């Protein structure tokens, strides 16, 4: 049987660029066709920015890899026009159990808030996720959007020039040279682009190995996240069991530092471990096994002149909390509209430095959370282990200790507090929708709020009837009028203690500013600020 990750999806094809007398210049070249690179390509092509994606491979990723996708990621995919069948294919889960030694310490239900189109999390193999993105790329191409994916094409050299980047690309037909006004390096944690540029990637190394196995089995485990601290079948270590689509289960087993990785990966060593965990009578088949180590680190900056890093190439976290691919998608969300504005000459290139400022903030938040989870899961000292075990012992009997149990703090989108693009916050409004926050979804007449915020600037006018569409700085600000009596999702999420509200929302659905009343002048001013007009020191 040919599996999805064994089928070439974008096989090498000779490009006319390879026969050009002089290197061909493209507005944007994206290196890497993983979740981040593909999402970036879709966002830009949708905005009519021509993109060329270069990948050294021609298939989706091998093995499940990133499996847990957050609500914010699904919302971004909706904006990118990705087939909603992706969410339906994923396994939606809300419940989990935590075990310590031989006992269940407690179980939880995330009790997701109602009034959102998308669930809190779905589990889906990365190869399915990537396939959906490739399908969306093909759909855009068929609609005449300027998007190209070049498989089996490997960047072998990079030269930063004044105002552009020059690249050497190796192909089965030999090398050729390309130029890009902007280069997006979405080439993963081991980013060759980062290495070619000699840039640092510093942070904390965790001396640990984890075995991950995708196991196909007919099992009656519920759709829950099960996490073990120090279980009998993996003494002194941790274990995780999580369900994916197609009857595939993801198992993570901590192995410690001093192991022989190649030996541990052999089926004759993996299978007894899994039998010890699942029981002798459970029939299963190994689909994929890998051993990983991890680091929590980031680049000092994510933008270096005309080269911009996004996703794992810019920042790397431990896997606990699903903060890898999900934060990469937020990078793309943040970058797309800014790069479009700069390319169109509607904003100064300094706007791209706010991609750096806002996403560095997001990366630091993710690194902090995933480092803390890792410290809890794999205590680094005897006292750290004693305290960890004390928390687990207490959690069994006492509710107070349960919030201290840390087997991963699940990804939530970053609030860009203090961003230089944020405008006024004038009123007694809810904290969760303050300037810098991603707009919170809510049901509205005929659909969902976030579905109406489709990639441009929007004005949300709640119980306000004099708001007018605005043309400013080359942007068209559309108005969405809503009514709310105070109760209900819109009232709770956007009005708080106020009766009326005007929200200015960015193309990435983050809130710029909010007021009680409509003022055309204030909105124009906030819009110019959101485009980076105040970045040169003349902040009022």
């Amino acid at each position, binding site marked *: 049987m040919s599996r999805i990750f064994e089928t070439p999806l974008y096989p090498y094809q000779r490009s006319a660029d390879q026969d050009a007398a002089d290197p061909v210049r493209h507005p944007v070249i994206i290196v890497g066709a993983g979740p981040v690179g593909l999402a970036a390509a879709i966002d830009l092509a949708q905005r009519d920015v021509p993109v060329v994606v270069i990948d050294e491979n021609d298939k989706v990723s091998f093995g499940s890899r990133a499996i847990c996708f957050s609500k914010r990621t699904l919302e971004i995919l909706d904006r990118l026009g990705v087939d909603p069948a992706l969410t339906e294919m994923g396994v939606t889960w809300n419940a989990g159990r935590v075990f310590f030694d031989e006992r269940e310490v407690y179980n939880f239900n995330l009790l997701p808030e109602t009034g959102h189109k998308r669930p809190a999390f779905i589990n889906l193999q990365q190869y399915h996720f990537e396939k959906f993105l490739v399908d969306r790329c093909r759909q855009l191409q068929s609609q005449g959007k300027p998007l190209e994916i070049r498989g089996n094409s490997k960047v072998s050299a990079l030269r930063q020039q004044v105002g552009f980047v020059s690249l050497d690309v190796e192909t089965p037909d030999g090398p050729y040279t390309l130029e890009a006004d902007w280069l997006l390096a979405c080439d993963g944690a081991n980013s060759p682009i980062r290495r070619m540029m000699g840039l640092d990637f510093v942070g904390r190394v965790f001396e640990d190995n984890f075995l991950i196995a995708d196991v196909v089995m007919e099992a009656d485990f519920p759709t829950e996240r099960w996490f073990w601290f120090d279980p009998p079948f993996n003494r002194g270590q941790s274990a995780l069991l999580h369900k994916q689509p197609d009857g595939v289960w993801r198992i993570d087993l901590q192995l410690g530092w001093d192991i022989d990785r190649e030996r541990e990966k052999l089926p004759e060593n993996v299978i007894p471990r899994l039998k010890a965990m699942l029981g002798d009578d459970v029939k299963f088949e190994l689909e994929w096994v890998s051993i990983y180590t991890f680091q929590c680190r980031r680049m000092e900056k994510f933008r270096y002149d005309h080269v911009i890093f996004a996703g794992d190439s810019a920042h790397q976290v431990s896997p606990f909390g699903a903060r890898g691919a999900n934060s990469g998608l937020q990078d793309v969300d943040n970058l797309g509209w800014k790069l479009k504005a700069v390319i169109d000459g509607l904003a100064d290139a300094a706007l791209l430095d706010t991609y750096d400022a806002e996403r560095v903030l997001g990366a630091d938040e993710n690194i902090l*959370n995933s480092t803390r989870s890792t410290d809890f899961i794999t205590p680094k000292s*005897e*006292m750290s282990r004693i305290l960890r075990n004390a*928390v687990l012992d*207490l959690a069994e009997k*006492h509710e*107070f200790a349960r*919030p201290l149990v840390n087997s991963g703090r699940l990804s939530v989108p970053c609030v860009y507090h203090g961003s230089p693009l944020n405008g006024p916050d004038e009123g007694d409004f809810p904290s969760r929708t303050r300037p810098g926050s991603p707009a919170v979804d809510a049901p509205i007449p005929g659909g969902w709020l976030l579905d109406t915020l489709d990639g441009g600037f929007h004005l949300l006018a709640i119980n306000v009837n004099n708001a007018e569409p605005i043309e400013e700085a080359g942007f068209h600000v559309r108005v969405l009028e809503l009514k709310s009596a105070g109760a209900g999702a819109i009232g709770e999420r956007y009005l708080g203690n106020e009766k009326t509200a005007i929200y200015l929302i960015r193309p990435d659905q983050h809130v710029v500013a909010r007021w009680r009343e409509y003022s055309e002048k204030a909105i124009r001013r906030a819009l110019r600020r959101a485009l980076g007009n105040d970045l040169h020191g003349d902040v009022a």
Partner: protein
Amino acid sequence: MSKLVLKPNLSRADDFYAALLAEHETLTRDESDAYNARLLLVLANHVGDPDILAQALAAARK
């Protein structure tokens, strides 16, 4: 009799836990044990109420 709080009451639990681990980071095991002893005495003094402290002593038993 006042009742010991055994529902979650730490406003930023992860921050507290990280700060506690950070205190121990540079200590030897003996120093860590002594630090914990001092910490619990400081907290006991803050609580003050003997009824609460008696319930806390019982809650910590295995």
